[in-house]
């Protein structure tokens, strides 16, 4: 005989269906339910003793959503009769203050309502944390909507018998969430596409426990009605070549009002050579091991960058910044801006290489090995003996496609303006304001100008012939200083240095216009300023 009891949620009956209007995608809603299983596994400290087994059964009927169903079963701690009250209330969760709060995935006590309500209109929960009885209740949104201010959910407690003691993936404790009457179709391909990326960190033991050591037990995720090898989901791999793995360790700060916050992001990026899909390039972002965003490229791509040039770039980042209520994306916040700025800055030195790596994907193994060896050398990573010998025999890679593009872009005369080997710039200072570039002489001209159009001391304009003109606005106080410095530079080192800086600025703009590489331009800076 079942014992009946009533759960009284402290919210309006329509709160359940409304909670589903979160705009979640199906994969996100399903992940929220799996995240609850993971949290239960950690909070009960079962993560130290046994694997977490989660089974996802989907019966999607595109033309009969009413009779479609999704069932998620775990062998975790399960819930007590008392816990059921919290489950159905909004924003009531023990997680933030729990011993393991820092590493838990749930934040706000909203995941269950938000995600089940998003997927379907009828929800059934079967759960227990003990071996004596188990509990079952169903929520039908339309019925609760009608109950208004004082909704009641009828629940039952059943005796736990030998057969039911294996209900939860072979375990006596755990939870089954069943969702029926779908709001939309959930194609099975979504599960196979998203689950391996979403949970790969828990599947491979790449998540840290409170003590900073990896969690030794794993999440085993099955899709299907049986716990068979065929139904086991295998973890996603970025397929980044091991020799290109580059660690990312970012610390960043931001302000919210007057309060200063600190964030940390750790992970890696690398280059893959097995495929180069524009769809799957990018960084997968996780929070405490749960996927937040997949294939993100906004972290490293500037507005002018070509998506196509980054197809070999992949990586993972685990962040500790705030995410929105249902962890579907990084919050559009100061924290997110600070993370993006930090990543973009960190990534700058690698940008020229990204294109070379994406070109290498389409080449043979020899070219790929050379690209990898070059990469390791450029970023001071240790080189294997074979990489050393590759470099000794073949040298550097040049972005030949850039050369080709330039050639196409500029027509027949490009060879005049862009040196063939841009890594070796033929630059020499002849006088304080004269230099030779690729055998041609140029002069940086300081032209006094009796006006002050932009309220700046000087303006560098487009080069004409062999001149790099600078207009010095003599009515600006600092403009007068610049003109004055020209006559005093032989006696005064500060004046000389001031002019050197301005001359370099003009040369830098000129070299940028000619598409010289940053590295070469920095070399020129040394020459100009060392005089």
């Amino acid at each position, binding site marked *: 005989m079942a014992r009946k009891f009533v759960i009284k949620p402290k919210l309006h009956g329509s709160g359940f269906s409304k909670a589903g209007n979160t705009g979640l*995608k*199906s*994969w996100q809603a399903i992940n929220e339910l799996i995240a609850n299983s993971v949290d239960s596994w950690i909070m009960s400290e079962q993560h130290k003793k046994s694997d977490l087994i989660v089974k996802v059964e989907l019966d999607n009927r*595109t*033309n009969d959503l009413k009779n479609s169903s999704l069932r998620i079963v775990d062998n975790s701690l399960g819930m007590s009769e008392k816990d059921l009250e919290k489950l159905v209330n909004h924003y009531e969760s023990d997680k933030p203050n729990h011993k393991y709060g820092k590493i838990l995935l749930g934040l706000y006590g909203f995941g269950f309502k938000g995600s089940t309500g998003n997927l379907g209109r009828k929800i059934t929960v079967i759960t227990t944390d003990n071996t004596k009885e188990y509990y079952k209740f169903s929520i039908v949104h339309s019925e609760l909507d009608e109950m208004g201010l004082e909704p009641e959910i009828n629940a039952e407690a059943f005796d736990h018998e030998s057969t039911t003691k294996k209900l939860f993936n072979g375990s006596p404790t755990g939870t089954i969430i069943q969702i029926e009457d779908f709001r*939309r*179709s*959930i*194609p099975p*391909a*979504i599960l*196979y*596409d998203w689950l391996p990326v979403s949970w790969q960190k828990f599947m491979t033991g790449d998540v840290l426990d409170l003590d900073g050591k990896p969690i030794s037990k794993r999440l085993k995720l099955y899709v299907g009605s049986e716990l068979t090898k065929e139904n086991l989901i295998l973890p996603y791999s970025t397929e980044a070549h091991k020799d290109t793995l580059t660690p990312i360790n970012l610390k960043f700060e931001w302000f919210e009002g007057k309060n200063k916050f600190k964030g940390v992001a750790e992970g890696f990026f690398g280059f893959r050579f097995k495929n180069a*899909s*524009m*769809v*799957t390039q990018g960084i997968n972002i996780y929070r405490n091991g749960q996927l937040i965003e997949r294939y993100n490229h906004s972290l490293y791509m500037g507005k*002018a*960058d*070509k*998506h*196509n040039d980054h197809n070999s770039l992949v990586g993972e980042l685990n962040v500790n910044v705030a995410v929105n209520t249902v962890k579907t994306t990084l919050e559009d916040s100061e924290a997110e801006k600070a993370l993006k700025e930090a990543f973009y800055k960190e990534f700058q030195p690698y940008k020229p290489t990204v294109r070379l790596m994406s070109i290498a994907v389409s080449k043979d193994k020899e070219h790929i090995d050379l690209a990898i060896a070059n990469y390791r050398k450029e970023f001071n990573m240790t080189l294997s003996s074979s990489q050393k010998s590759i470099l000794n025999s073949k040298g550097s890679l040049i972005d030949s496609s850039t050369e080709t593009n*330039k050639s196409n*872009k*500029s*027509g*027949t*005369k*490009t060879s*005049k*303006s862009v040196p063939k080997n841009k890594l070796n710039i033929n630059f020499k200072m002849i006088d304080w304001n004269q230099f030779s570039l690729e055998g041609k002489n140029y002069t940086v001209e300081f032209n006094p100008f009796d006006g002050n159009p932009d309220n700046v001391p000087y303006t560098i304009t*487009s*080069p*004409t*012939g*062999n001149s790099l003109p600078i207009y010095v606005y003599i009515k600006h106080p600092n403009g007068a200083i610049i003109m004055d410095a020209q006559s005093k530079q032989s006696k005064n080192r500060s004046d000389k240095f001031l002019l050197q800086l301005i001359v370099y600025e003009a040369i830098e703009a000129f070299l940028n*216009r*000619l598409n010289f590489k940053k590295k070469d331009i920095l070399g020129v800076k040394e020459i100009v300023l060392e005089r």
Partner: protein
Amino acid sequence: MNDKFFVKYNQVVELFELGTYEDEQWRMQLATLLTELADLWPNIDFEDLELQLNDYLWRIKQIHMWAGLDINSILDELDAHGSLYFMDAKKYLNPEEIDDILEKFWEISGDSNLPKSGTIYRLAIGKLKKLEQIKKNKSQKSKLELLIQKLNKFEKHKWDVLLNLASDWESEERFLRIVKDLTKINSKIKKSDFNYFVDYLVYLIEKDYIQEIVSDNKAELTKKLLFDDLIKELKEYAKKP
């Protein structure tokens, strides 16, 4: 697109049309504008730029070519003939032909008070017919372009089906936008979307969103035909040349 770019591009077009190549001010102004244009040139394909600028594709390509030169080369070219087209046309002419045309051009221009660059185009037109032939021979389509050409020919109702399915699959916004555009009459895949669109279709096949349908369910007939066509075309595309 940057407003500055739009304005400067149109200034360049006007100056080239004016074509007063012996006027130093004209040359300086045009050269400066072209170098500025190079810095502002947006990172999008010519075909998309064609729509945004509402200008001829050939002119956009020619101006892009000019803007890619260094300022000295621009000034040299402007000084010699100032013709938008002639610089490109030279690639397909031998040195004797170029000298011959330039000499005639200067000869004619010498008699004029205000010589115009346009004359050189007329002088070169005979040779350019040959050039057109060369260009036609050269323009063999890539495998990707051939695939896109085939996809562009798909019946519109098939894209309607894919759009509904892709929404269920929670596909990326960019992909949904492209498919939505394709459902419209006379719409084609934009060049800037070629790679992405094909990559996404390959992805959908790899992940079994698009798969062979074996059932004879009539309700799924359009879907079956669409999937069969997509799989067939992408298999063809994936074959090595």
